[in-house]
C-alpha cells in the first residue's frame, strides 16, 4: 500500500546514518548522567544544523516583511518565502504552489478547513466521517463545526489492540450523507499505516470530500497528493525536522477556489473599503497577516535535508527499528502491546502490567531515554481500548539499534524496580 503511494527519491543510495546523526547538535548531550536517547519523535522531531543555520542566515542577512515591500531585503524575504512554498509543493507533488497554504501546524490546517470549508458546505443532516484513531486535532474542530452547522459525526471503528481500521464497516458508514471524510495517514499512538489512497478512492466515488492528516507521515514516507487522491492534506513542520510555528495545508485548487476566507487582515485582500472587502485567490486568501517567514524558510531547509536522505530510506529505517523494538518487547512478561503486528510505522506503544505509563516514562527519563506516556491526544481511542494511557517510543532516522537495545534494558529495569 505504502510503497505504491511513493515517489522514488533515492532508493539505492547507501545512507550513512551515523553521519546524519552528527548533524543534530541536540543529540550530543547527557541527560541525568546518561547519553540522551530521544524516542519522542512522534511528538516533535529534532532539527539538523542545516535548519538552524537557515534561520540564522535569514535573520542575519535577509529579514524583512514580505509581499508589500519593494526594497532589497523585502524582495529577498518574499523570494525566499515563496521559494519555500514551491519547495513544499514539490515535496508532496502538488500541481501548483498556489495549492500550498502555510498554517501554524496540522491543528490549524484542520481548523481552517473545518471553519472555511465546513461552514460553507455542511448542512443539518450531513455527516462528517472520522475514524476512532484520530488525534484530538482531527476530532475537536469537527465537533465545533458540527455544533455550528447541525451536521453530525460518525466514526469508522478500530479493530482493538491491533489498531487497524475496520474496513468491513466502511460500506455501511461511507454513505451519500457523508460530506467529508477525514482520517489520519499514520496513527500517532498505534503506528498503524492506513490505506489512504484506497479510502480516498472509495470516498471520491460518492463525491465525498477527503482530508488526510499527514502529521505522522509527511517526514517519514514519500507523499504524492495526486496519487493519494485526497482533497486536503495537512502536516506540521516541527515533526519533520523543521521549526515550530509553521505547517502546511494543501488543498486541491478547485476546492480552495470555492472556499470563503478564514481569518481576515493584511496580505489576503485585494481591496478594502470601510464596509466591503474583496479577497485574493488561494493561497493568499487564507494567509492573513504577516506569516511565519522564518518558519517557512526553516521548513524549506528541512525538506531539502529529508529529500537528500530519501524518504524511502527513512521509512525503511524507521520501520526496521520499530519492528525490532516490537519484537524485543513481546519477549517481556506482563506487557500489552498496541498497534499492528506487521507493517507498523516507526513507533511502539505499550503498557506494563501494574506500572503506569507515566511511571515508566519518569524512570526511563532518569536513564536518559525520552519516551512519551499518556493518551497521546487519542482519549476516545484509549477509552475504547479500556485504558487511559500508553507508553510510546517513536523513532526517526537518527535513532539506532543500539538505542533500542538500551531502551529494552531500561524497560526491564523498570519492571524490576516496581517489582512486577
Amino acid at each position: 500500500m505504502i510503497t505504491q503511494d511513493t515517489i522514488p527519491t533515492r532508493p539505492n543510495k547507501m545512507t550513512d546514518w551515523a553521519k546524519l546523526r552528527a548533524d543534530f547538535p541536540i543529540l550530543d548531550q547527557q541527560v541525568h548522567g546518561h547519553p540522551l536517547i530521544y524516542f519522542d519523535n512522534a511528538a516533535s522531531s529534532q532539527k539538523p544544523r542545516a535548519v538552524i543555520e537557515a534561520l540564522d542566515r535569514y535573520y542575519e542577512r535577509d529579514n524583512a516583511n514580505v509581499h508589500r515591500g519593494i526594497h532589497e531585503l523585502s524582495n529577498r524575504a518574499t523570494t525566499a518565502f515563496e521559494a519555500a512554498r514551491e519547495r513544499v509543493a514539490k515535496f508532496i507533488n502538488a500541481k501548483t504552489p498556489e495549492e500550498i497554504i502555510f498554517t501554524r501546524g496540522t491543528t490549524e490546517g484542520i481548523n481552517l478547513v473545518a471553519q472555511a470549508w465546513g461552514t460553507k458546505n455542511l448542512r443539518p443532516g450531513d455527516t462528517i466521517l472520522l475514524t476512532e484513531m484520530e488525534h484530538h486535532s482531527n476530532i475537536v474542530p469537527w465537533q465545533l463545526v458540527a455544533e455550528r452547522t447541525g451536521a453530525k459525526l460518525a466514526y469508522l471503528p478500530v479493530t482493538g489492540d491491533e489498531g487497524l481500521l475496520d474496513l468491513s464497516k466502511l460500506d455501511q458508514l461511507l454513505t451519500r450523507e457523508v460530506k467529508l471524510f477525514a482520517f489520519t495517514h499514520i496513527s500517532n499512538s498505534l503506528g498503524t499505516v492506513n490505506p489512504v489512497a484506497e479510502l480516498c478512492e472509495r470516498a471520491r466515488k460518492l463525491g465525498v470530500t477527503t482530508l488526510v492528516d499527514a502529521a505522522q507521515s509527511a517526514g517519514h514516507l514519500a507523499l504524492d497528493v495526486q496519487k493519494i487522491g485526497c482533497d486536503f492534506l495537512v502536516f506540521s513542520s516541527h515533526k519533520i525536522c523543521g521549526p515550530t510555528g509553521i505547517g502546511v495545508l494543501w488543498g486541491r485548487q478547485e476546492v480552495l477556489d470555492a472556499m470563503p476566507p478564514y481569518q481576515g487582515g493584511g496580505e489576503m485582500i485585494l481591496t478594502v473599503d470601510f464596509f466591503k472587502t474583496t479577497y485574493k485567490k488561494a493561497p493568499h486568501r487564507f494567509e492573513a497577516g504577516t506569516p511565519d517567514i522564518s518558519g517557512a524558510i526553516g521548513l524549506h531547509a528541512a525538506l531539502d535535508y529529508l529529500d537528500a536522505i530519501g524518504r524511502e530510506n527513512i521509512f525503511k529505517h524507521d520501520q526496521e527499528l520499530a519492528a525490532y523494538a516490537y519484537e524485543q518487547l513481546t519477549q517481556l512478561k506482563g506487557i500489552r502491546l498496541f498497534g499492528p503486528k506487521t507493517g507498523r510505522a516507526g513507533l511502539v506503544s505499550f503498557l506494563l502490567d501494574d506500572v503506569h505509563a507515566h511511571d515508566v516514562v519518569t524512570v526511563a527519563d532518569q536513564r536518559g531515554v525520552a519516551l512519551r506516556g499518556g493518551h497521546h491526544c487519542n482519549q476516545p481511542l484509549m477509552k475504547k481500548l479500556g485504558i487511559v494511557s500508553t507508553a510510546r517510543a517513536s523513532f526517526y532516522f537518527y535513532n539506532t539499534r543500539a538505542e533500542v537495545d538500551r531502551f529494552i534494558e531500561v524497560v526491564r529495569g523498570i519492571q524490576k524496580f516496581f517489582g512486577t
Partner: protein
Amino acid sequence: MSDDLDDLYQQVILDHCKSPRNFHTLDGANRKGEGYNPLCGDNYTVFLKMNGDVVEDASFQGSGCCISKASASLLTATVKGKTKAEVQALFAKVHDMMTTGTVSDEGVGKLAVFAGVHKFPARVKCAILSWHAVLAAVEGKDGPVSTENESD
C-alpha cells in the same frame, strides 16, 4: 537507581502504591470530591464521612500512577480526625512542599516523603491530585476538580 529517583519513589511511596490503604468506597460517606488530571486522563474520587466539621473517615477510588495512588492512600490516612480548617491548612502546606521541596513545618508528618516530587515538575500534579479532591470534598464543592491551571 539514581538519587533523584529514590527521592521520588521512596520506599513508603512504593509500598502505598502497591498496597493502597482505604482503597474502596465508603459506607456512610456524606461528602465526596473528584480530581481529574487532564495531562494523563487519571482521576480519583475521595470519599469522606464528616461529622460537622470533622472528618471521621476517608477512602478513595480511581486509578492512576504510583505517585498519585500513594498520595491518595497516605492522604486518606492523614485526614481522619482533622477538621475542615485543618485539612485546608494541610493542603496549603502539602502544596507548598510538593512544589518547592522544603518541608517548612512539622505538620506534614509522613507526607514529607512527597517532598522529592518537586524535582519532577511533570509529576507534581500526580501527587497533588487527590488533595484537590479532598479539598473539594471538605468544602462541599460540586463536580470534578481538575489540576489544570494548577500553578505548579
